[in-house]
């Protein structure tokens, strides 16, 4: 199910921002695809849809949901799922993804990707939610690993094993966010490479890269925040380079959502990532020869 998408979407993509629309249209840059947050296109009409319609004429799309609250204890919001389905039907994206996180509780929406414990209880819950989403949408989704800042005493699973089990049970794919793996590993003293090796890498359908911010907690211990507000850190790119040979050349998204730079800066960062991909591919080819 994932492999069939590879023909539609390749290379390094960029998160689409309305302020870049004119620059993109004028130059039609060589970008692999654009990714949008599904919730930003759940209005009835107007300029957001006009821009995305136009973009879709020249580029493949990835629709990335942030509001389904798949990790929440409540039943999924079917009205929201219908809205997601409408966006997917309208734009026929190559990829649809969501998060291993929660954002809604009872009637309120909390606008963030919040952490959940990894237990047999939440495993059953998340599995049921992913099954429901995939059956409503009639397609496979990718589930993204989160950045987290805390741990639950109740957790009995390593996050990577938990994800692997969900993927095994639901047949969904993995959106491998390498910045999130790095952030989470630093924040909880995990070995990032061990985290990666626990994952079912053949199920990776997309990679995310983003910048993170340094912080210090109340105990004086440094930790990282998944800020999406700067270029990708060298450590994250090194991890990316280490992972690339382990997986097929999956599409990679550059996320930059805060302090968004002008288009040329964003494009240059995407090209820097593309050069790393191309370099890894070339060295792999030499190895095979």
């Amino acid at each position, binding site marked *: 199910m994932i492999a069939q998408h590879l023909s539609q979407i390749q290379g390094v993509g960029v998160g689409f921002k309305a302020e870049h629309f004119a620059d993109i249209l004028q130059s039609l840059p060589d970008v692999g695809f654009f990714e949008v947050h599904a*919730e*930003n296109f*759940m*209005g*009835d*009409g*107007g*300029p*957001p*849809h*006009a821009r995305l319609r136009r973009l879709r004429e020249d580029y493949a799309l990835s629709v990335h949901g*942030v*509001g*389904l*609250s798949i990790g*929440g*204890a*409540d039943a999924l*919001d079917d009205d*929201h799922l219908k*809205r997601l389905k409408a966006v997917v039907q309208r734009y026929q994206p190559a990829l649809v993804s969501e998060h291993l996180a*929660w*954002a*809604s*509780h*009872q*009637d*309120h*929406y*909390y*606008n*963030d990707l*919040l*952490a*959940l*414990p990894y*237990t047999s*209880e*939440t495993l059953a*819950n998340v599995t049921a939610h992913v099954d429901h989403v995939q059956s409503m949408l009639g397609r496979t989704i990718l589930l993204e690993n989160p950045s987290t*800042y*805390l*741990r*639950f*005493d*109740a957790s009995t699973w390593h996050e990577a094993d938990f994800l692997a089990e969900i993927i095994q049970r639901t047949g969904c794919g993995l959106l491998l966010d390498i910045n999130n793996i790095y952030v989470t590993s630093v*924040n909880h003293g995990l070995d990032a490479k061990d985290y990666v090796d626990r994952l079912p890498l053949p199920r990776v359908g997309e990679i995310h890269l983003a910048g993170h911010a340094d*912080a*210090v*907690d*109340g*105990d004086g*211990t440094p*930790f990282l*925040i998944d800020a999406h507000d700067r270029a990708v850190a060298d450590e994250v790119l090194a991890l990316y380079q280490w992972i690339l040979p382990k997986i097929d050349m999956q599409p990679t998204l550059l996320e930059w959502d805060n302090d968004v730079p002008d288009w040329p800066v964003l494009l240059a960062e995407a090209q820097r990532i593309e050069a790393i991909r191309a370099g890894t591919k070339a060295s792999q080819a030499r190895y095979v020869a």
Partner: protein
Amino acid sequence: MWPDVQQEFAGVLLHPDRMQPDGIRAAPLRFDVYRNNVMVGLRRALEETFPVVRALVGDAFFAAMAQAFIRAHPPTSPVLLKYGAGFDVFIRNFEPAESLPYLADVARLEQAWLAAYHAADCVPLTIDALANIPEVDLDTLQLRPHPSLQMFAADHPAVSIWEAHQGPAPVDLRGLMSGRTYAMIVRPHLDVAVIQLQGPAFNLGATLFAGVPLSVALESADAEALDPSTVLFDLFAAGAVAGLGYGDNAIGDTPS
């Protein structure tokens, strides 16, 4: 059990004075990343929707007012495009803003602008459409509004205040602080237009778009204060008319 832990977690997200839930291991300030993400994200959503309210009160006042609104009315949907409905009512009752009686009306105008921006797309009718209506049906003629149309009336000159903030020029609000506003906000294609109207024209437009047949609306219109054919022409010219109904027939309402 996860539902109980989640309940506690959700309950402290908007309240920095409440302890983080039991069963969570996080050094001080780490849990606050989530609190900060939620509050800053929602505040930014309000800043984007209410740029003129923000300019009128300043960044710090706006941030405090937004925070109070967010705590009182957290979003009920993951679709934040529409978050901020009700901000005008909140502002009207927000004591620190008492000295700015026009502020709530400006907020309501910005809410109407946002509703027009995200409304369904529809091809507006031109006044030529009237030529196709048989004379015998004119008595029953009804106008159907464009999906983006918002009729806006306020006690304060909200539109003039809003317009003063649209350009790069420094804002001079002197002389703008009193007088009722009548306007229609409509997005016939991609651009939202905010069009000021005279009171009688506004009343006729609002009556027509409420579905009152043209003949009936004209009877009750203030004939001395307005020229109905000019009002009709202006409504069509603004792109505010999406469809017409007459007898058992209808034209227009064509999605685009």
